């Protein structure tokens, strides 16, 4: 018998190195692909038989629909997709997808997913988490997954409240927020998840909005294609405990004036014609939106560079929005390539096994147990 280097059930199938037409290295490069000539899966194939139990009107429904509609486009075998979640409303997500799934414990999904993704390069591993799950009880696992750059995609549903425990302030709730546990207002300073991720050495950081299905779909596509940890913050409305938290940027009249759509290689703009403004770096280094016509005289126009290795400008963009949600950046803040943790772990093992001339057998194990100092008793 030999030591298997892969679980026996893993099938080595031909892999299209470039699903979604993205350049290598691709986040799904080692995951088996569907037969291109076979029947194309539909969104229905990804819906489980379980009744969805979020409150009516919850933003989670739209996200679920978007993900169910998006997954067939990955072209993967659904048995090679795994959703791992923690605890919270959003963490019920895996039950509603007909893939492999684990609804784990509070905050720990990134750690569990790290073990899974490292042991199994043939899986597309997704983490579904919330602001309390990922940023409070699980903050440590989140930042370490990001710095290690494990090949997984983390969807962080940010509703700025604890929903499942019925309405306490969360680490993303605004200061002064009145909740059940902060009757005279929260004194906590909130996290900005995008800033946090950028500070934690993340290689892919994006933000989207629950009800903008087209935008979310695009972001998910890029996140899945990213090799390494992709963090997608999704602003999600909780109509029960924090209704309207994102109304200011959902309202069609106000949206254009408040959203900053980040596009790599493009100037950073806000607003619609004729009052469109562009972001410039003024003399003292600060970033300021000015009318497009006046940009030339005001300073250097800021062009978004999501691929820049130095995250300083990406970080500055993540800080544009204050408490008032007046200039909210959406899209991909950062998208850089860096060797992934799981590839590194596997490469070390492969190198050791190759150097030794193949998988270890009984004789190799015996030699290990014997070590260097043995003696014989007749």
């Amino acid at each position, binding site marked *: 018998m030999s*030591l298997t280097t892969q*679980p026996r059930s893993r099938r080595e199938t031909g892999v299209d190195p470039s699903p979604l037409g993205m350049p290598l290295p691709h986040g799904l490069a080692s995951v088996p692909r569907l037969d291109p000539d076979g029947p194309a899966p539909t969104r229905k194939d990804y819906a489980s038989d379980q009744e969805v139990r979020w409150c009516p009107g919850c933003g989670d429904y739209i996200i679920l629909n978007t993900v169910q509609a998006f997954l067939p486009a990955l072209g993967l075998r*659904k048995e090679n*997709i795994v959703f791992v979640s923690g605890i919270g409303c959003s963490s019920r997500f895996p039950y509603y997808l007909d893939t492999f799934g684990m609804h784990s414990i509070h905050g720990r999904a990134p*750690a569990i997913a790290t*073990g899974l993704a490292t042991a199994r390069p043939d899986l597309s591993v997704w983490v579904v988490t919330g602001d309390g799950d990922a940023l409070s009880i699980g903050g440590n*696992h989140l930042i370490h997954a990001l710095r290690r750059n494990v090949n997984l995609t983390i969807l962080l549903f940010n509703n700025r409240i604890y929903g499942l425990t019925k309405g306490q302030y969360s680490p993303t709730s605004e200061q002064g927020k009145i909740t059940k546990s902060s009757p005279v207002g929260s004194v906590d300073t909130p996290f900005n998840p995008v800033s946090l991720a950028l500070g934690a050495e993340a290689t892919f950081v994006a933000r989207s909005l629950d009800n903008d299905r087209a935008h979310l779909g695009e972001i998910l596509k890029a996140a899945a294609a990213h090799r390494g940890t992709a963090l997608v913050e999704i602003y999600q409305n909780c109509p029960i405990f924090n209704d309207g938290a994102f109304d200011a940027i959902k309202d069609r009249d106000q949206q254009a004036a408040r959203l900053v759509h980040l596009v790599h290689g493009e100037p950073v703009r806000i607003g619609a014609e004729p009052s469109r403004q562009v972001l410039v770096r003024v003399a003292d280094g600060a970033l300021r939106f000015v009318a497009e016509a006046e940009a030339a005289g005001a300073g250097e126009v800021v062009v978004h560079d999501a691929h820049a290795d130095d995250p300083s400008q990406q970080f500055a963009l993540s800080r544009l929005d204050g408490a008032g949600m007046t200039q909210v950046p959406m899209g991909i803040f950062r998208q850089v390539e860096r060797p992934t943790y799981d590839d590194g772990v596997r490469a070390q*093992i492969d190198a050791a096994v190759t150097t030794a001339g193949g998988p270890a057998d009984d004789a190799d194990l015996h030699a290990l147990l014997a070590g260097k100092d043995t003696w014989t*008793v007749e």
Partner: protein
Amino acid sequence: MALPWSAAGYPATSEVTMTNDTVTRPAPTRLRRVVIRFAGDSGDGMQLTGDRFTAETAGVGNDLSTLPNFPAEIRAPQGTLPGVSSFQLHFADHDVLTPGDAPDVLVAMNPAALKANLADLPRGATLIVDTDEFSARNLAKVGYAASPLTDGSLDSWHLHPVPLTSITVEALAGFETLSRKDKERAKNMFAFGLLSWMYSRPMETTKAFLQSKFGAKPDILAANIAAMEAGWSYGETTESFATAYEVAPAPMPSGTYRNITGNTALAYGLVAGAHRAGLRLVLGSYPITPASDILHTLSGLKRFGVMTLQAEDEIAGIGIALGASFGGALGVTSTSGPGLALKAETIGLAVSLELPLVIIDVQRGGPSTGLPTKTEQADLLQAMFGRNGEAPVPIVAPRSPADCFDAAIEAVRIATAYRTPVVVLSDGYLANGSEPWNLPDIAALPDLTVEFATERNGVDESGRPAFHPYARDPKTLARPWAVPGTAGLEHRIGGIEKADITGNISYDPDNHQRMTDLRQAKVDGIASTIAPLAVDDPSGDADVLVIGWGSTYGPIAAAAREVRAGGGRVATAHLRHLAPFPANTGDIVRGYRRVLVPEMNGGHLALLLRARFLIDAQSYARVRGLPFTTGELVDAILATTESA
């Protein structure tokens, strides 16, 4: 004079008289057993010296047992009592069960080492001290008003005052490239050479060891070897060391042996278990004393496909292991008591998920940080009950350093066959202690082949084929292990109560009762696959049963042997499985008038035996951070026998 390793491999020990130019030596005196303790400052290399002496002793064919004892601080202030590190070795021409109650020989490298260890040294025993270290300043550091070497306070011992440091430096006079400090550092090898002469140990393998350690630094290598030779010659030529001793090989079952510590044996057992199961071993671990050596050892075994992920914390360590198990690997996490506390919630999740997982707890003194480098058995109840809800977990405990190998394989067997987390309770003594190990035949190790689920195993409400993740094997009650990547078996598991069979979320009261019962029945059922509890009762009519678990095996067996040698009658039994207990445990403990339970905790097993079997078990519970001595257990047994 022939160098010891260039001579015929082994110093002459027969009736032949060894001679050299100046002294005529009698043949070595035969001894049946010897206990040596090397003690010095943390920086004096006592652990290395002890390890090497152990290796040579093992090579001679003696049976042996070791007890390293070192401070939690990496380098406590030099020359102080907290900085004392020691290594005790017991070797004999018969089977050795413990590292020995009290040393026959104490090597004290400084006043602190003398002061910290003298109380353990029986009067008349041999004491070798490095007189160079007995300066006024060093004496003052440990509160000696006058030098014990000269004030007569050591008159009851056989004192050898040796200026170890200065002789070493002198012997290395020719090494011009080395500083005085470098030369002084070799004094442990001088002491090693001296003791090797005294006890007729060959030094070849240590020479080879030094070569591999210092091969890149030829000066240091040569100096260490020269210091070693000088120590040997010093013993041979100095009047005060009149006699050398020898201890004949112990009769041991035939086979190839090596010396092994508990942590190494555990790591190797996990690798062997994974090998026999055909699974990849994935360790998720956070560094913690005294378990870190398991992480170190496994991280060097990439050639065996072993993945080690050093996690950001204890919780992530077990989370990584559980994630890997979900993916079809053998997930393992290693820790000590404080880490086990942090992992409790994830162990509960693994109980609910019913996935294989091995949790190694190398117990240390507690509560809280406690005594990180000292041994204790006070995590038994934590392992058994330390989770929310009804969360039964099998517990396996090794009883000696080499037995850690078999215990690890047993844990892998239970985890994979029953799809359950398993706790292995080792401890600080087993972790760092060592003994000879008869190497196993790999092919004869248990076949732990695992079958993953490949097919749908039921039908849904409308009669279509479906996969039921909680449909159980009727014999083991284990659920199918269906790993991602298996078409048609897509399913969701989690920590919310599962519906029997389908695994869907269920809040149904009857279902919760049923699932709770099933999880308990599954663990209880393991008892049908483990050996019945064996009793050692040579007289056949003992009134007292001494029952223990884990690392107390050696001291209990040694004490029973001594009681029996003195004409006493006592029975012993030792538990490898704490959960479930072997099926006959109740019958056995109820069969004796008195049951004595020695444990290095507050009486955990005694509490369990009382509760489970309604017997008046008597607890002998001590938490001194050290293994029991044979002597104290003899006293405890005799006291119990008298009252029986």
